[in-house]
C-alpha cells in the first residue's frame, strides 16, 4: 500500500494514537471536562424533575444516553481544531500515509479518552439514576457501541466545521439529527433490559449501525478534511 514510505500503515496508526494520547494526558483538565459534563448533565434531570429513585429508573436510560450524547459532542469539537490552528494538520496530511489513516487513528484515540472513559464511568451514573446492577452489562455494551458510532459521526462533523469560528454549535446541529437513531436503539436496549425483556434486537441494530458507520465514516471524514484543507 505505502510503496514510497518505509513506515507501514499499522506503525503509523500506532504512532499517531500515541501522539494523541500523549497530547491528551498533558492536559488532564481538558481530559476530564467531558466526563464532568456527563455527570453534571445527569444531575440536571433529577434536580429538574424531583423524582424518587424508583420513578427515575423509568427515565434513566434516556437521561443517561442524552447526557452521553451531549458530552461526546462537546469533546469531539477539538478533534482536528488544535492541529488545524497550529499548522500540524498540514504536516500530517503530507506525511505520506494518506489522510484516512490519520483520521482513523485520531478518531480512535479520541474515543479512547472520551467514549471509553464514559463507558467506565457509566455504572456510577447508572446507580445514581436507579438502574439495577443486573442491567449494567447491557448498558455498558450499548454505550460502547454508541460512543464509537458517535465518535465517527462527530469526526465527520468536526472535519466539516474545523475552519469555522463558533463551529461547535453548528457541529452539534449537524451531528445530533444523525445521532437520533443511536439514541433510540441505545436507550431502547437499556430500557428493555430494565423491564426484563430481551435487549438483543436493539443491541443487534446498534451493532449494525456501529459497523456501518465505522466502515463508511472514515472516508466521509477524510473528504470533509480535504474540503477544509483546500
Amino acid at each position, binding site marked *: *500500500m*505505502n*510503496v*514510497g*514510505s*518505509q*513506515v507501514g500503515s499499522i506503525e*503509523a496508526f500506532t*504512532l*499517531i494514537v*500515541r*501522539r494523541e494520547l*500523549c*497530547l491528551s494526558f*498533558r*492536559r488532564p483538565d481538558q481530559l476530564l471536562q467531558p466526563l464532568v459534563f456527563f455527570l453534571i448533565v445527569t444531575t440536571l434531570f433529577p434536580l429538574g424533575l424531583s423524582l424518587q429513585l424508583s420513578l427515575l429508573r423509568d427515565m434513566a436510560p434516556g437521561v443517561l444516553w442524552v447526557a452521553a450524547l451531549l458530552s461526546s459532542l462537546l469533546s469531539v469539537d477539538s478533534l482536528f481544531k*488544535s492541529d488545524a490552528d*497550529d*499548522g*500540524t494538520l*498540514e*504536516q*500530517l*496530511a*503530507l*506525511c*505520506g*500515509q*494518506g489522510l484516512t489513516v490519520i483520521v482513523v487513528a485520531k478518531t480512535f484515540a479520541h474515543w479512547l479518552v472520551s467514549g471509553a472513559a464514559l463507558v467506565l464511568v457509566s455504572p456510577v451514573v447508572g446507580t445514581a439514576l436507579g438502574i439495577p446492577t443486573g442491567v449494567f452489562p447491557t448498558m455498558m455494551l450499548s454505550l460502547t457501541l454508541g460512543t464509537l458510532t458517535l465518535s465517527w459521526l462527530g469526526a465527520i462533523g468536526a472535519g466539516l466545521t474545523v475552519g469555522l469560528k463558533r463551529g461547535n454549535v453548528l457541529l452539534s446541529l449537524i451531528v445530533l439529527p444523525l445521532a437520533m437513531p443511536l439514541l433510540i436503539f441505545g436507550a431502547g436496549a437499556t430500557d428493555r433490559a430494565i423491564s426484563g425483556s430481551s435487549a438483543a434486537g436493539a443491541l443487534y441494530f446498534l451493532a449494525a449501525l456501529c459497523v456501518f458507520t465505522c466502515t463508511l465514516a472514515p472516508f466521509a471524514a477524510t473528504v470533509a478534511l480535504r474540503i477544509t*484543507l*483546500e
Partner: protein
Amino acid sequence: MLKGVSLTLRPRQLLHISGPNGTGKTTLLRVVCGLLRPEQGLVSWLGQSISSVRAEYQAALAYASHEPALKGDLTALENLRFAVGLKRRVTAGELRASLEKTGVAGCADLPARVLSAGQRRRVALARILSMKASLWLLDEPFTNLDAAGTDLTGALLQSHVEGGGAALVVAHHDLKVDVDMRRLELGL
C-alpha cells in the same frame, strides 16, 4: 488568483519564488505540495501526476509552512519524533543530532511553547533535515531568525542542493546561496 504559472525543477536546482504580498506565493507552494488542487493545470513528479503517486511524492518531500507547525505541549524531540517517524524510522539519537545541527540541542526536552520564535523556526528546520527528503518546499524559512540562523539556513540549503536535492523557497529577500538558482517573480 494565480494564472499562467509554469515551472520545472530538476535535482541540484533551487527555485526562488518572490513577489509582493498577496501575489500567491504561499498558494503556489501549497499547490506544489498537493494540499491545494488547481482549478486548471497539473503538478507532476518524475513524469507522473502527483495525485497518482501521492504516497511516493509525499515521502520524497519536506514542507515547511510559514508557521513552524509545532505542538506546544510536546517537547522539541517529541515533535520531531511524531512528525518524522511517520515518514521513516528514526532513532532519538538521529533526531538529537539534527537538533544539534540547527543549534537547538538544548531545547530538545523542552515543551515547544516555552521556546522563542527563533528557536521554533530552528526546530522546524531540524525536522526538515531529519526527513531526508529530496525535495524541500520552504515558505519564508528565514522568518524570526537572527543573522547566525539565516546563515545556517543558507548553508543547509546549499549542502542539500549540492548533494543532489532540489528546493523551492519562497522568500521576499535575496538568497545568498551559491547553487544553480532560478528565480520566479510573481507580480500583481
